[in-house]
């Protein structure tokens, strides 16, 4: 029972991170019908930026842990969001009217470019986050131990998801994003500046991916320049699992994948941890290509 509970809470914490990254894939897919293959590398960028800001500014020293982390998260979100918007300008907008395959190639190119840029700046070695940022205490819930870090990570990702959901569902701009995802031409006829909508999607999606990178750094304490690849693939799987293009789907898919993976690693084999996620991807594509909540994708990548 305790083992199960440990794996469940760990799975939920990691799943929250997957969900945040998956939202970036799904939002971009929603408006452009394009898989942003560089998204995983924007996540990596968030992890490295977080580390740099953390060590160079000493925010948590000046502002206290909680406020310091919030300011840090906002800065990382902002910087990675801007990087995402620039990426769209440079790599995707010029190809908006070209064949879809051109944009896919451009996305792969952007991924390689970002990954190598990070490697050139920081070097190829692993980096270690300062360990004393998040409290290492353990709470007891119904007598079962849970590290406080997990609760913090899960809470932060749930709050971000709730914020995004409200933004998309309740605001004028959020409704414009939904409209542009359904029919760009009709959205233009409503007076919506679709280019601006796409820019906002490329600010918000990568911003969330960046903050997820920061969370991974804080949770596991270690980052390297290729981490975006595995996390990107997992989050992409989560997005497909929930139904790509569907925002609540990405949230559900992320949490579910985190839990499946954690339980699978514990009860099947730890060596199979990564394989489990990809088995899930393959099974979904075969059994239910629309995902839990979404539209068909198999012929759209």
């Amino acid at each position, binding site marked *: 029972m305790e083992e199960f509970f440990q794996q469940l809470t760990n799975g939920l914490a990691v799943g929250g991170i997957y969900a945040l990254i998956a939202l970036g894939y799904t939002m971009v897919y929603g408006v452009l019908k394009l898989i942003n293959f560089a998204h995983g590398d924007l996540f990596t960028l968030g992890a490295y930026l977080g580390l740099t800001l953390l060590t160079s500014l000493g925010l948590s020293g000046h502002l206290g842990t909680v406020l310091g982390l919030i300011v840090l998260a906002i800065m990382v979100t902002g910087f990675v969001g801007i990087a995402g918007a620039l990426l769209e300008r440079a790599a995707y907008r010029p190809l908006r009217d070209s064949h879809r395959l051109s944009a896919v190639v451009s996305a792969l190119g952007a991924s390689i470019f970002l990954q190598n840029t990070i490697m050139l700046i920081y070097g190829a070695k692993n980096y270690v986050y300062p360990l004393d940022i998040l409290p290492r205490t353990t709470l007891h819930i119904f007598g079962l131990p849970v590290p406080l870090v997990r609760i913090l990570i899960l809470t932060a990702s749930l709050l971000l998801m709730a914020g995004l959901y409200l933004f998309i569902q309740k605001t*004028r701009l959020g*409704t*414009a994003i939904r409209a542009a995802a359904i029919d760009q031409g*009709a959205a*233009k*006829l*409503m*007076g919506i*500046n*679709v280019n601006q909508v796409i820019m906002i999607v490329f600010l918000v999606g990568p911003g969330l991916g960046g903050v997820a990178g920061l969370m991974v750094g804080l949770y596991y304490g270690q980052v390297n320049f290729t981490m975006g690849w595995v996390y990107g693939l997992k989050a992409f799987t989560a997005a497909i699992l929930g139904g790509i293009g569907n925002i609540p789907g990405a949230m559900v898919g992320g949490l579910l994948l985190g839990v499946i993976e954690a339980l699978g690693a514990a009860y099947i084999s730890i060596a199979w941890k990564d394989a489990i996620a990809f088995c899930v991807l393959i099974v979904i594509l075969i059994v239910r290509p629309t995902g839990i909540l979404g539209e068909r994708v198999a012929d759209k990548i």
Partner: protein
Amino acid sequence: MGEGMILKIENLHVKYGQVEVLHGINLHVNKGEIVTILGANGAGKSTTLNAISGLVKVSSGAIYFEDQPISKVPAHRVVELGVAQAPEGRRVFGTLTVQENLNLGAFTNRDGDNIIQTLGWIYELFPVLLERKNQLAGTLSGGEQQMLAIGRALMANPKVLLLDEPSLGLAPILVKAIFKTLKEINEAGLTIVLVEQNARAALKLANRGYVFEVGKVALEGPSADLLEDPNVQNAYLGGNH
């Protein structure tokens, strides 16, 4: 631009890729008029409306709205200037509610009082939309979706309303109701450009008409004249009745 003119198209050419589909359209619309554009499938009617709305690129020629050239103005700005379109095939946002669709129509409308007033008017014109305001637009019948598409365009508080085949796929009784409403909308002061396949009904409603043939204006004139024209009768009105 002439006195009382609100919209003017001069020698409009449009290409899709290498293929030119509009070969020099000339057309004007006076303030307060209903002007209909008739013609067979593929004649270039929708392309003309989309050129006005800024959805397709103009390769040469000019479009003026209230004396202002708009052929290079982006689509979302055209709506802001005062030209709204209910497009062919309705294109309502199926997974959004009726209310959300109407709110989107008012995206450029910054006048809160006007939005409330227009919404009230639309619900008066189309009471069924009020009944179904929390329903997803995709669950409405074809006729209801058409009403929603028209209502949504009205929410922008436009000066000119472009309608692309509003009768498409609707039962005759519904067409009659919608055309009656269009008359009401026109009497409230809106200028209407009506693209139609249903030539007889459109000419009865409109002040003037244009007949398009493969990307050119083949005939134009007051509706009464076009109704009497033997060419129009043969080609679009199913012979002389």
